[in-house]
């Protein structure tokens, strides 16, 4: 449909009207999830007198919208909507004139309403006036605007236009773009995650070996350009698997400065001062202060922390690329992509789709560069989805910031002098693809964005305001509030300190120094509406262990190049509660007064206030990025926790009604006072002044002098364990060494051809198969990813490594030439056919008690397995095989189990299965230093990194025939026990067992526990700290599930987890590190592996935490 009316300037279209009377507005900004699209539609519909449903808004699309710069600084409504609004007003005037002509009416008497031109009782629709027209008008910025008094849409309720599709899954986020023929790229980032300057950038990739993956189904290509590396495959999951399997070698990056001390790191970093405001004589002014206060305020690195990792799709399109992106800045991105490819910007089209909220410069632009490099290399469309870890590690962070202040009041109590210096190591985040490929040099690039809200709003006689521009230390770019947030933290904390010093109410002190009546009005009205409690010193209100306080702060968000443009102003009154035992700070109520001039959509303005409060409070209370010596370490929410629902304060808002004033940006203003308001409230509650964000419980405990919990020493057990093992090995060798030779070695049993399968009865074979499953033979006798039952699995023992043997009937490497006699001897005496002793990792000590016909059935089954030729690797053991004969003489009593006449048939059958072929004692009975089973059978033991819990005696947790039978047949006794690790594999084998055998084993096992079961402890209280937060954010969703029927939750409470009740943390560590995988045929569930996400020290600390919290009745692992 050709447009009937187009309003343009310099080739940019701002508004079109269709012949059907509907309007389309064009704006170069994008909707970051704030409702901009709806608000712009309201503005256009209002000026055009159209219903909201007749207006469509096209945002950020390089082929269609004007270049209005990045969607930053809360300027979309305040600045970039201005020409759109003018265009709409201009179009309404055009329609009115056209209507006047058509109706032959005086223009002055014409009105417009609901898509119609009206004169007296005559109405003519816009559509009728537009039919057949094709007008193009130059934009008239001076078109008279509607009187706000007549607004019916602007300033009123209007639902989000994008919400209905989002509710049903019909909305196309950037992640949902699927194009025909699209391939999938998975990037492999260098080890210098989150860094952007230094010679090593773009020059660290040594080599990779694509032969490791090139033959896999779905492989397309490995694409490399300098340090840019990616695998492309036909499917996303394959691309990821291949990327993770690709051997890549990188140079080790140089160390970072120690960023756990941001002050030293930032102040040691090159910077250049820019003096922005000098009023009066700062030297003299400072000299007159009584007293002069010198303060330093510190802000940490923060993440944007988008909930959806960035994604992009690109189509090379024969050299005129189209890029689908979630960018904040389509035109700026297009410029970067032009630099990346050498193409002219006009050739590239960026189509913007909504992404997860970004709140600033995250990886959205970077991943667009990735996708474009890949589509250029392959000529096909490529989608790239970053992982959570890639997003968190590489996103340009919100920069740390150091603010130093000197100043004070004079003898009259007036704010007299203020010297302010701010260091802000950030820039605009050069596109990562440009850096990795070397398309731009990795030189330090300072920027000038540290000057947002850098001048406090108060009347101060002597001022010197200086920003120290500096390049980032780690990748950093704008994040909501940019430098205004830290600068305001300093200004508004310091003002609070001055008021306390002067023993004056903090609000009264501010008002006394505010000259702007509109600003003063906001402060006064907010304090009044929020029931601000006047005070001249901290109130220190206590009730039990809680201290309560109220804080005030206020700021105008000033954005753009200094002196910048003022967006909305916001004032906070916040009520906090401080737990004086744990140091936790809780926000109980936040009251925000805001002056944004005309509010286009008051509901959505309030939503922005709510969002700013919650997000900024999260940043102020709990967020800070961690680093090791090379890189960012926070890969997930485990170590970078975001505020959750229970932490959400009650939020009250007051919008100052100023419909006659121009609308001011509301995207960031409400958050700017947050940190200072909270710090001031903490001061009011406790008398303690917090000058470094975040105000974590640890920092609060330090500040309040609360004794922190004893911290656990790290990294000792490994060394201690090795020493113990070494001593045991030496002991065993010494004990057996002398006597070894006096025992004769066993003779070989001659080779025979094994009988063919047809020689065995079906009944025998079925029985053999069942025994094979019950004995879980396949588990040990199959190597990881190896042929079934062909052996080769390495079994680590305290005495070295032995490999399982080939059980298949291959004549050279398996049992194909074994007679039954040879097999029976091996099973009963631990002697191989050729006469050499088998290491007791092979549980012949249990098998010895098997009945002869069971051994025969098992032998028969083995001879029917598919033959696999696979030799067994040589054992690497510290104990020589001949010594085993001595060990057998000492510890092995080969005898059949005689039935106990006092017990029933089930019990006896169960005992036989458990004690012989089931070989349960191999794991569940502790061993002596010499590797023999201790005299406390089935009383629980560590087996390498796993704990086999007690089945007998007072410590047995799983009791009762029904629970045990359920556990044996499915792996789960609901709520009481769930198999994990090697036991899960055992259960998988048991699942083929006849019910009668399961019942029998359960009957026997249920008879073993003695005494009343010890009641399991309640979980112990925890102290909020880093590890407690890791548990809350990485573990609790499954282990303290919020909904009782969560299908992916853990099946038993951690108080019942054997790994946590084990003698050592090894099993808990292994479970956290490697996760759990439910074997087929069980009712078990998976657990994700955290080995890549958490540092080993954190995993150990987490294991200790779990022990202390969930097994407080047992000795700690500290």
């Amino acid at each position, binding site marked *: 449909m050709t447009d009937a009316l187009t309003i343009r300037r310099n080739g940019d279209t701002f508004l079109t009207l269709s012949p059907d009377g509907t309007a389309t507005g064009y704006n170069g900004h994008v909707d*970051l*999830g704030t409702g901009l699209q709806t608000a712009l539609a309201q503005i256009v519909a209002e000026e055009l007198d159209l219903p909201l449903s007749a207006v469509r808004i096209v945002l950020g699309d390089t082929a269609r919208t004007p270049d209005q710069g990045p969607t930053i600084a809360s300027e979309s409504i305040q600045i970039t909507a201005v020409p759109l609004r003018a265009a709409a007003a201009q179009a309404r005037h055009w329609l009115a004139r056209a209507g006047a002509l058509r109706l032959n009416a005086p223009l002055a008497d014409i009105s417009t309403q609901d898509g119609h031109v009206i004169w007296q009782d005559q109405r003519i629709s816009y559509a009728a006036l537009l039919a057949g027209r094709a007008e193009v008008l130059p934009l008239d910025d001076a078109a008279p605007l509607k009187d706000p008094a007549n607004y019916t849409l602007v300033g009123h309720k209007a639902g*989000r236009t994008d*919400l*209905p599709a*989002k*509710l*049903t*899954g*019909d909305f196309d*986020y950037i*992640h949902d773009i699927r194009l025909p023929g699209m391939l999938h790229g998975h990037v492999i980032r260098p080890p210098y995650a989150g860094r952007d300057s230094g010679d090593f950038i773009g020059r660290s990739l040594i080599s990779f070996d694509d032969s490791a993956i090139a033959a896999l*189904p779905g492989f397309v290509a490995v694409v490399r350009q300098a340090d840019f590396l990616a695998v492309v495959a036909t*499917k*996303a*999951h*394959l691309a990821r698997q291949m990327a993770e399997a690709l051997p890549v070698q990188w140079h080790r990056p140089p160390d970072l400065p120690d960023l756990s001390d941001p002050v030293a790191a930032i102040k040691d970093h090159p910077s250049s001062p820019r003096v922005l405001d000098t009023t009066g004589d700062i030297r003299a002014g400072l000299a007159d202060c009584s007293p002069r206060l010198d303060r330093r305020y510190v802000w940490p690195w923060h993440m944007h*922390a988008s*909930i*959806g990792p960035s994604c992009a799709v690109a189509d090379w399109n024969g050299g005129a690329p189209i890029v689908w992106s979630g960018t904040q800045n389509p035109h700026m991105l297009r410029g970067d992509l032009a630099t990346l490819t050498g193409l002219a910007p006009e050739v590239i089209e960026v189509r913007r789709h*909504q*992404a*997860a*909220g970004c*709140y600033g410069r995250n990886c959205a632009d970077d991943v667009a560069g990735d996708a474009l490099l890949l589509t250029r290399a392959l000529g096909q469309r490529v989608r790239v*989805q970053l992982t*959570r870890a890639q997003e968190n590690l590489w996103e340009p962070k919100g920069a740390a910031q150091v603010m130093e202040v000197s100043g004070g009041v004079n003898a009259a109590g007036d704010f007299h002098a203020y010297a302010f210096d701010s260091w802000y190591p950030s820039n605009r985040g050069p596109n990562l693809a440009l850096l990795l490929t070397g398309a731009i040099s990795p030189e330090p690039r300072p920027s000038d964005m540290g000057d947002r809200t850098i001048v406090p709003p108060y009347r101060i006689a002597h001022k010197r305001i200086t920003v120290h521009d500096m390049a980032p230390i780690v990748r950093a770019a704008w994040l909501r509030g940019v430098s205004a947030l830290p600068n305001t933290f300093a200004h508004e904390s310091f003002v609070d300190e001055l008021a306390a010093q002067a023993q004056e109410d903090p609000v009264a002190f501010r008002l006394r120094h505010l000259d702007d009546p509109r600003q003063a009005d906001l402060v006064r009205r907010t304090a009044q509406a929020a029931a601000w409690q006047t005070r001249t010193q901290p109130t220190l209100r206590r009730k039990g262990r809680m201290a309560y306080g109220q804080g005030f702060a206020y700021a105008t968000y000033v954005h753009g190049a200094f002196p910048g443009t003022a967006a909305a102003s916001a004032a906070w009154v916040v009520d906090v509660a401080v737990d004086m035992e744990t140091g936790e700070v809780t926000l109980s109520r936040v009251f925000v007064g805001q002056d944004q001039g005309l509010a286009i959509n008051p*509901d959505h303005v309030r*939503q922005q206030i*709510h*969002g*700013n409060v*919650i*997000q900024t409070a999260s940043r102020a209370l709990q967020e800070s990025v961690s680093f090791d010596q090379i890189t960012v370490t926070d890969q*997930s*929410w*485990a170590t970078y926790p*975001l*505020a*959750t*629902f*229970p932490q*959400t304060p009650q939020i009250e808002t007051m919008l100052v009604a100023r419909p006659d004033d121009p609308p001011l940006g509301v995207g960031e203003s409400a958050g700017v006072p947050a940190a200072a308001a909270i710090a001031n409230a903490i001061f009011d509650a406790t008398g303690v002044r917090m000058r470094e964000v975040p105000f974590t419980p640890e920092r609060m405990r330090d500040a309040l002098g609360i004794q922190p919990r004893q911290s656990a020493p790290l990294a000792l057990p490994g060394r201690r364990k090795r020493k113990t093992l070494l001593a045991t090995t030496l002991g065993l060798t010494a004990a057996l060494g002398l006597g070894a030779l006096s025992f004769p070695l066993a003779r070989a049993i001659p080779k025979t051809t094994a009988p063919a399968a047809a020689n065995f009865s079906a009944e025998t074979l079925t029985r053999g198969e069942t025994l094979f499953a019950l004995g879980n033979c396949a588990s040990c006798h199959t190597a990881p990813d190896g042929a079934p039952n062909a052996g080769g699995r390495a079994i680590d023992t305290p005495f070295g490594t032995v490999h399982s043997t080939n059980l298949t009937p291959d004549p050279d490497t398996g049992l194909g030439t074994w007679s039954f006699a040879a097999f029976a001897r091996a099973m009963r005496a631990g002697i191989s056919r050729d006469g050499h002793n088998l290491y007791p990792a092979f549980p012949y000590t249990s098998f010895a008690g098997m009945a002869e016909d069971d051994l025969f059935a098992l032998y028969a089954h083995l001879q029917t397995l598919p033959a696999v030729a696979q030799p067994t690797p040589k054992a690497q053991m510290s104990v020589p095989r001949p010594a085993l004969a001595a060990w057998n003489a000492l510890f092995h009593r080969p005898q059949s189990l005689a039935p106990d006449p006092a017990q029933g048939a089930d019990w006896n059958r169960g005992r036989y299965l458990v004690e012989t072929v089931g070989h349960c004692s191999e794991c569940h009975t502790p061993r002596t230093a010499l590797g023999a089973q201790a005299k406390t059978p089935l009383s629980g033991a560590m087996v390498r990194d796993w704990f086999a819990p007690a089945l007998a005696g007072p410590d047995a947790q799983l009791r009762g025939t029904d629970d045990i039978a359920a556990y044996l047949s499915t792996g789960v006794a609901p709520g009481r026990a769930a198999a994990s690790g090697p036991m899960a594999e055992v259960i998988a084998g048991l699942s083929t067992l006849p019910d009668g055998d399961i019942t029998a084993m359960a009957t026997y096992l249920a008879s073993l526990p003695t005494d009343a079961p010890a009641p399991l402890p309640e979980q112990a209280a925890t102290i909020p700290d880093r590890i407690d937060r890791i548990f809350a*954010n*990485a573990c609790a*969703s*499954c282990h303290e599930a*919020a*909904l*009782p*029927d*969560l*299908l*992916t939750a853990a099946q038993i409470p951690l108080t019942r987890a054997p790994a946590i009740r084990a003698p050592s943390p090894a099993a808990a560590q292994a479970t956290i590190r490697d996760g759990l995988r*439910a074997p087929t045929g069980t009712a078990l*569930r*998976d*657990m*994700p592996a*955290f080995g890549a996400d958490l540092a080993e020290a954190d995993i150990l600390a987490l294991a200790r935490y779990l022990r202390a919290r969930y097994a407080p009745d047992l000795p700690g692992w500290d």
Partner: protein
Amino acid sequence: MTRDLALVVNGQPVTLHVDADRTLLDLLRDELSLNGPKYGCGMAQCGACTVLVDGAPARACVLRGALAEGRSITTLEGLADPDTGALHPVQQGFLDAEGAQCGYCLNGMIMTTHALLARTPDPTEDQIRDALRHNLCRCGAQVEIIASVKRAATLMQATPTQAPKVHAPQIQAPRIQARQVHAGDPE
């Protein structure tokens, strides 16, 4: 290793020829082109991927396809009335109270609310906060989401026939039939 994996998705039986170790989230998004469940963290930390499995909430990013075999999966796309297209009361509650900003977490909020209201039809605000404590929203839409859950509870009680239910295969229209044609892994 690829094999046939049978699921019922939004009432429609589907058989995928895939590696059954892939996550359910991956299968729903990449094989069935469903957009409701979202990839957020891959480690059950954020809740954006939540679906219902036989009516119970599940974090699809940590659930292997093999463990969902034969089960009935309901995604955001399967909540609205298949015949009339009318929003489910939980969806309507989130529309009425505008329980989203960017909306990326919205799927998890809605599916978790669905599961909450199935057990607790009239939750207190504390119960709502508690039930959603492992669902992350970075925009800070918590205030509106809590209001949405309350609104949804009211709507559900007003329309008892709309109580949360497990999708039964026989009563559902084949919403995703066309999406089966490209489902499968390379051999």
